[in-house]
């Protein structure tokens, strides 16, 4: 389970900027941010596949469905 594989990732300037900002904000390496993103993507994907829906609730408690994936 712990054997690791390496891949090369090409990002646009904007994508790299966002990655660097998140890395600084979250105090995580860029690699850690991308691994978190992958985990979140899979988790959301599974829930949607089960028929669930993903909502954001704003401060007024109004829900907006997030159309993703």
């Amino acid at each position: 389970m712990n054997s690791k594989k390496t891949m090369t990732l090409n990002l646009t300037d904007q994508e790299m900027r966002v990655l660097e900002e998140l890395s600084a904000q979250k105090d995580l390496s860029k690699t850690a941010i991308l691994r978190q993103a992958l985990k979140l993507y899979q988790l959301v994907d599974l829930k949607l596949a089960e028929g669930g829906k993903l909502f954001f609730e704003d401060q007024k408690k109004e829900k907006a469905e997030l159309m993703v994936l």
Partner: protein
Amino acid sequence: MREVIQLFDNAAKKLVDAELFDEVTVEHFLETQKKWRPIVKDAAQQLYRAGADVGSIPQHFHWDWTSKEADLRVLAFTFFGISCGGELQGLMKLATVGHVARHPEQKGKPIVYVDYLETAPWNIKVLTQAQGKNSRFGAVGSRLIEAAVRKSQEEGFKGRLALHSLPSSEPFYIETCGMTALERDPAKQNLVWCEFTPEQAETFLS
């Protein structure tokens, strides 16, 4: 991952080798249903009949690890188990996504969350005493918490760890482990959210 660790054998009064692993399977879950569950239920009923305080009756005797089978394939979740003497001694489920620190000094930073942790009932003194026996192995829970802290470090979260403590476990997590009790969480049955900062995690490990 498989690693040899030590537990304390209460009968032999010495340290013995055990195994920490992350390749938890549904067979381990079935083992908890077959071997742990009946003992926990029985001990809980005995305690209840003896008029024990509600807080000392284990609240996990109806847990069903097999219901978490689908989570074994989800990257966001990591499972750890400890086995010794050919038997499962402890099991833990961690979430490495979806939770952030609430401690004022760590607010918003990613954190590993202990979703579930259970030690085999023969390792829990309160339960074995209800059946007139001694507990078998010591430090099982602590070794699982240690694994959780090290997982947090591996993820780049610097040892940050959080859990919602059962009322009967608050003394262990807050006083013994040294976690900070931050707030009662109405979203989680008013259980107390406890957290390790990176410094507290290091203190626990040393």
